[in-house]
């Protein structure tokens, strides 16, 4: 590697690590009892962002008026359009296609391929995405993809695990589709050339995941999402499907009379111009909302995860569900800054790594459920027993060297190679040093409601004609909590279904749809009545991490960014 080598922890942090080392022997073998259900409940209700009063509020507009959801999401729903309807010339259609797919992750790519397999010509499909094709949460998935395909497992069991994990709030028909399609998806990916971990005889090596009662996590080393994404993206390119990068959708288009969705307005972020796309069917596959930093949390998500899809769908009347819950992974990286918010796999704790506060004390049984562990870490930091980093973040120690101490030298290198690599890059040797951790915003549990063939539904259960959705942007598949490995499955199962449905709809449709922004005008009347400030606009497209000092002085003299 031609990069510079880091020197690891700064001296002031190394100083603080001493207490972890000094207490290691005495913590060895120390038992922390698990909490009773009542104690758990109390802890979570006090500290978990899902239960804190100040993190949520009722949304005051639109189809789900009155529903309590995360503040940051409610703010976006109560926002003016990014592009004023009057500024767009709809008589000038730039792209006239059968299928418009909005998004560039695994759900979008799956939809494109299955539309092609179902007979739609690749030239009549357009993928429009925000960054590059594949810059998405999909490439960041490491753990694996679930499918019940071993003899001691069954789709029925997978169904039960998924519903229970989702606190029984999942939509049953969607879970059924998820688990029954799963083995077909694995075979499809295998046929495309995904390098799954296998034994010499071809048997899948399957791992266990939180909440799953059988080993059913298929992996491609710890690059599972990257491997799936790059293979299906390669195939989309091979088929010749049109792809527009750096051109996010900012608004859907609708038939002025029927309200059927008929395309979208795209915005080219590089030349700052809009394009009008007319489409017979539009598929939303825009992913999640991590970059909204709900309740101020760091996130594991990619740069473009800003909830655009739910904003656009809501304006055409879609029903949103389960947006009162978000998945926070208990152990995100708090230091080094370079990888802050990124994941530290749960496997570390299964292997015996202990959570330790600034006083060298353990404060929770590490194998409690995710929301419980996350709450305990948040509590330690809020009550002053956390460790403050040079960049002002807070965290507690995850004592990784304990793993080798208990299970023998070499365990870490053997069982956690990716983790080892991730930290050694920054000069931290996890076989000798603890790492600093804090919960991180991980997954959008809820979203746009769909039926099993991905039609987007209104609150009354009727479909919005012309609009489909698949992947993390949707809600219902995972209820209030997603199991590890069910999301890569979600995006391929429902991405595929969206492609098939879209092809069917295209065949049934004669003539070209009509386009307008009438639904936006109606929405704007509501916004006006509500007195929403004019400068609050959505979709936001990208988070803004510029320094305050720069922003204070910012002048738009010429719109000429150097890159």
């Amino acid at each position: 590697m031609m990069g510079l080598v880091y020197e690891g922890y700064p001296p002031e942090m190394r100083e603080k690590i001493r207490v972890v080392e000094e207490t290691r022997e005495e913590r060895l073998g120390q038992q922390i009892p698990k909490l009773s259900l009542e104690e758990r409940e109390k802890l979570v209700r006090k500290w978990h962002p899902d239960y804190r009063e100040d993190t949520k509020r009722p949304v005051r507009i639109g189809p789900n008026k009155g529903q309590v959801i995360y503040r940051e999401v409610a703010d976006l729903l109560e926002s003016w359009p990014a592009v004023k309807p009057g500024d767009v010339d709809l008589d000038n259609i730039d792209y006239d296609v059968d299928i418009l797919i909005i998004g560039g992750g695994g759900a979008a790519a799956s939809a494109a391929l299955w539309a092609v397999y179902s007979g739609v010509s690749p030239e009549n499909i357009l993928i429009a995405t925000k960054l590059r094709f594949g810059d998405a949460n999909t490439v960041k998935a490491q753990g694996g993809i679930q499918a019940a395909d071993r003899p001691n497992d069954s789709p029925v069991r997978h169904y039960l695990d998924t519903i229970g994990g989702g606190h029984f709030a999942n939509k049953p028909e969607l879970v059924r589709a998820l688990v029954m399609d799963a083995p077909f998806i694995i075979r499809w990916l295998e046929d495309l050339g995904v390098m799954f971990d296998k034994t010499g005889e071809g048997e899948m090596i399957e791992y266990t995941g939180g909440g799953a009662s059988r080993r059913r996590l298929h992996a491609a080393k710890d690059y599972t999402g990257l491997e799936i994404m790059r293979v299906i993206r390669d195939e989309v390119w091979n088929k010749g499907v049109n792809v527009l990068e750096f051109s996010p959708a900012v608004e859907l288009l609708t038939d002025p009379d029927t309200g059927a969705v008929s395309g979208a307005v795209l915005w080219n972020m590089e030349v700052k111009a809009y394009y009008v796309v007319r489409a017979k069917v539009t598929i939303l596959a825009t992913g999640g909302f991590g970059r909204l930093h709900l309740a101020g949390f760091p996130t594991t998500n990619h740069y473009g995860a800003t909830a655009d899809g739910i904003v656009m769908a809501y304006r055409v009347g879609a029903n949103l569900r389960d947006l009162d819950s978000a998945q926070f992974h208990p152990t995100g990286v708090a230091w080094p800054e370079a990888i802050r918010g990124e994941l530290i796999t749960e496997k570390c704790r299964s292997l015996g790594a202990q959570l330790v506060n600034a006083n060298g004390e353990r404060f929770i049984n590490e194998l409690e459920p995710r929301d419980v562990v996350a709450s305990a870490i948040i509590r330690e930091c809020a009550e002053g027993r956390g460790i403050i980093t040079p960049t002002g973040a807070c965290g507690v120690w995850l004592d990784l060297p304990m793993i080798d101490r208990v299970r023998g030298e070499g365990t870490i290198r053997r069982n956690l190679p990716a983790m080892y690599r991730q930290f050694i890059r920054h000069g931290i040797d996890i076989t000798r040093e603890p790492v600093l951790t804090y919960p991180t915003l991980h997954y959008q549990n809820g979203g746009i409601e769909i039926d099993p063939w991905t039609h987007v539904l209104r609150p009354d259960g009727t479909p919005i004609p012309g609009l489909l959705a698949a992947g993390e942007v949707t809600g219902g598949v995972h209820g209030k909590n997603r199991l590890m490995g069910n999301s890569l499955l979600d995006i391929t199962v429902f991405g595929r279904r969206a492609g098939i449905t879209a092809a069917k709809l295209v065949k049934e449709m004669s003539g070209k749809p009509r386009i307008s922004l009438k639904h936006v005008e109606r929405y704007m009347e509501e916004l006006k009545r509500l007195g929403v400030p004019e400068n609050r606009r959505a979709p936001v497209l990208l988070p803004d991490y510029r320094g305050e000092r720069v922003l204070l002085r910012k002048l738009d003299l010429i719109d000429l960014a150097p890159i």
Partner: protein
Amino acid sequence: MSSKESPETGPRPVSGKEEGGKTIRIYVMGRAYEVPEGLTILKALEYAGFRLTRGVGCRGGFCGACAVMYRMPGEYKLRTALACQTLARDGMHLVFIPYAPMKKPRYDIEKLRPDAGSVIAIFPEVTRCLACNACTKACPQGLQVMDAIQAIIRGDIAAAANLAFDCIGCGLCSIRCPAEIRHVYVFQLVRRLYGKYMLPKAKHVEERIKEIEAGKYDEEMEKLMKLSLEELKRLYMSRDIEKA
């Protein structure tokens, strides 16, 4: 800094220093910016006021969008890195390499065979490898890039696919390669050939598909979907759990 280097470009601003915190000076395509110490290159750029669209993607070292090249003061070496994974250092001169110009050739994977001939027919430049190792030195993932290319020439598709598995497609190797090889796409093809044709198929997946197609689970599934919440919860709590 060695005396032979040109003087620093631009005076240091008298205001704009971080209160208390130490700042460093980085040169973004020659223009100096003062930024706090301890940020990644990506975050330092953002702090300085860049709102990036190009050159940023997953922010976690998986997508390869944020490739940069840089030189440190007093060094002749042109270093490569991912901006999201690398700390900004005082005196660093850097440039974005958000894109390696190369077109992906189209092919029908169903019609190819897992051998060197298939790969070289599509990417003839592979045979021009000079074994200079510039690609390996450039790789921010620390991969043995040259070895992977050489394995293809030897006809060892399996070795090439495995050596190139952790490739995130940043394109830095391809920018440095005197043989003008399109590593990103070469490796993609090689991995697919290996995954599709050389890894044995999972028979148990095939068997489960047959069972599902024969309707083996339909009745049980219908029953489960009709259960009351109480019954469903009881069933869930009492299910046996396989050991890890």
